[in-house]
């Protein structure tokens, strides 16, 4: 029996009830990284203090965000988490290296904790002080693990932390500390043998290969003898001649140029010795003498040669690893040499400019690149990446 309700009325009622159904399929989407090239979907940087953002004898969140990997990630347009350290830092950077003054009046052992929130993944896994063994081994006797190793990575190695981020692309700049510590101590003792460096580096690269990394850039080890923390003995000789050193600070003729019978041009005086020890004592009225030929903390010509030779050996390994994988390679020494040749790296610290005593390219510890230099590093590294992978930025 057909009832009196018409199908038209029924349809109308159901249509009204069904109105809310419009737009019922409102699917949301995965929000993956959208870098300039899929190769950069997950970028991780491995390295030491430079890569971590260490400057002026300290590190904090502001400096970490000035580091070249952060800038590279911006060029890649890829997410990049940094284990940020709270202001003033860990330790806080120098405000004046000559007076040993740091931000906030803190000491060299002061350490602020990390900022919140703790990132889910860490992309910059570099740890200040790391040598070639450290990316794969924090526990070996030759490891340079320190407080920042735990503070930044929680005790994991750099590669363990990197693996958590499943990197598609990595940058590696490791090896500077395999020679730096010795150089700043005025000796070639303790320099990592090239064979050991090669073994460490190859182990790291093999581990990265196993991680499924699709590409990367390897940066060459810096010729640390070019850093302004190491001043030629002749610079002290000249400073003394110009009256820039107190009367109690004697500079031996061994620091004179070769034409005057000295070895001043072929020796390097670490800041920690020339200023930290000798000038500090002289300023207090103690008579001191810098002897470029016999003072153990002064790098002799032979020691410099050994260090430079080791670096060259390291870089053969680094470049070969890049070539073998079809990765990009960038040698920072090309730029460093040219900057030094242009006279843009001061041969002698400038106490009159405590915020930039080592010029525009180095921070006020005379070892670590300035923020301005990080920009150059990032751009040159990016250029090398673009050239190697044919990427259209």
């Amino acid at each position: 029996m057909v009832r009196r309700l018409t199908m038209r009325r029924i349809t109308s009622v159901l249509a009204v009830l069904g109105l809310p159904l419009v737009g019922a399929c409102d699917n949301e989407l995965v929000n993956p990284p959208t870098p300039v090239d899929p190769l950069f979907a997950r970028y991780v940087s491995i390295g030491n203090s430079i890569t971590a953002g260490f400057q002026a004898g300290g590190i904090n969140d502001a400096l970490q965000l000035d580091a070249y990997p952060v800038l590279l990630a911006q060029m890649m347009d890829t997410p990049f988490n940094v284990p940020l350290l709270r202001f003033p830092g860990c330790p806080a950077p120098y405000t004046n290296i000559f007076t040993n003054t740091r931000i906030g009046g803190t000491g060299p052992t002061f350490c602020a904790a990390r900022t919140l929130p703790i990132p889910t993944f860490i992309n910059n896994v570099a740890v200040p002080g790391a040598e070639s063994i450290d990316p794969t081994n924090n526990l070996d006797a030759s490891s340079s693990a320190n407080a920042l190793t735990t503070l930044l990575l929680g005790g994991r190695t750099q590669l363990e932390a990197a693996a958590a981020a499943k990197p598609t692309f990595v940058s590696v700049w490791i090896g500077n500390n395999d020679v730096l510590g010795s150089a700043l101590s005025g000796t070639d003792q303790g320099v990592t043998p090239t064979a050991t460096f090669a073994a460490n580096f190859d182990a790291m690269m093999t581990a990265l290969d196993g991680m499924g990394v699709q590409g990367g850039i390897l940066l060459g080890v810096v010729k640390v003898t070019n850093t302004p923390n190491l001043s030629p003995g002749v610079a002290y000789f000249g400073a003394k001649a110009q009256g820039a050193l107190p009367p109690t600070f004697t500079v031996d003729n061994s620091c004179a140029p070769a034409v005057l019978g000295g070895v001043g041009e072929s020796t390097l005086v670490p800041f920690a010795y020339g200023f930290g020890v000798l000038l500090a004592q002289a300023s207090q009225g103690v008579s001191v003498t810098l002897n470029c030929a016999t003072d153990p903390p002064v790098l002799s010509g032979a020691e410099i040669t050994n260090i430079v030779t080791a670096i060259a050996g390291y870089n053969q390994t680094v470049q070969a690893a890049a070539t073998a994988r079809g990765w990009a390679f960038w040698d920072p020494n090309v730029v460093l040499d040219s900057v030094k040749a242009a006279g843009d790296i001061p041969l002698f610290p400038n106490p009159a400019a405590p915020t930039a005593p080592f010029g525009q390219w180095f921070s006020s510890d005379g070892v670590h690149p300035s923020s301005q230099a990080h920009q150059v590093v990032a751009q040159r590294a990016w250029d090398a990446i673009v050239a190697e992978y044919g990427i259209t930025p």
Partner: protein
Amino acid sequence: MAVTAAILAAPGTLVAQGFQVNEHGTCVMGRAGVATPKPCGDGSAVFYNPAGVAGMTGITTSIGVTGIYAYGSFTDDYTSDETGLENSLVPVPHFYATYGITPQLTAGFGFFVPYGLGTKWPVTFEGRFNGYDNDLRSMYFQPTLAYKLHDLVSVGAGFDFVLGSVELNQRLDFSEQLAPPPAPAGTTLGQLGIPFHTDFANVNLKASGATGIAGNFGLLITPGEGVSIGFRYLTRSKLDYQGDAVFDPVETGIVLPAGNPFGVPAGTSLDLVIAGLGLFDDGALLADQGGDASITMPDQVSVGVAVSPTDAVTFLAEWQWVHWSLFNELELVFDNAGTKLIEENYQDTNGFRMGVEWIADPRFTVRGGYLYHEGAAPPETVTPLLPEGSRNEFTGGLGVRLNDRLHADVAYQYIHQNKRRGRVREPDAGTAPSVELNSGLYKFNAHLFGLTLTATF
């Protein structure tokens, strides 16, 4: 070591999802859950609209089960890793009995589970700190009386005795714990470098025997031939859970290097450091302990209309409102670990259901339907416990008259939940949940299979 109650925060999200179950009768399931304006004859009116029981003669009993197989996944934005749910088929039973005392007065009884969930993720899932193996059940036992006031109007009411249980398994994150002195107060171990999501303990939270009461009220009006209108209101029910929390250590696998903030030699296992803290000792913060929580099963309101243009065909439609905003926050009180207030911000939901029923012949009845239901969880609180969202559902069913006394119904329902962004981490202590924490996409779908046998005497 001061371990905060934040580690125990996740259980709160368990109760703050839209974990409503509406499939408590296979006949109704086949027509997309529309029963308020015209209940089925299997006694399920006890749940769907108690007024619908009025006028039933003799004795009717039915028993059935709805098998729910939910499946889904979470796809991480950054890694693109997709982790799938590992749910098994969950049976949800129902039972009804009615007895016509007089032509006007009918008594009934129903057993059903209108709120429940089960989500099981791999223990390696990044959301394991919210919960990886969770189960919640609220069983309702409802004696009912219904009365036919007039040929056109019936009313009904039921008293619900509610019995609830809940179980949650989750991992605890060492990075979220407070660091010991000399670290400044409030400093977490994550701020000292412990990696995010470092498992160091597993907690099993289990509570059963929670009880509550509720009322279920119905009104059924037949304004004209072939038209009926129904109204039904199920009140909220507050369940007070008193349970046990069992904590077990989980190895972090971390070996500390030199210079670590714990001052132990290089090569020392972090697990040794944790063991030395005595966190799991009797009376300590992570000792096995009791915990209290209250969960309110929300109110439900349904209004529907059924139209039968012929004796054989009925069109049905219904609107349902669920008072999920009751889950604005949740307080958890643990014997040793303190109190945690969890912000949930759930919102009331609307559901729209449409069904059709066709009596093909005296033996067979064919049913079909579609429904859409809004999600209760706001964008900032979509978590692994129940990655809930708005749903489109499609149903089909068949009723078979086996003989003069026996009737069987079978039904199938497909739930397609809209893909929804969500999170796998809790907000830092003292901060509100935010969509900024959402880091991936949840997919959630389910197949439901219903079978009910009905006997009339």
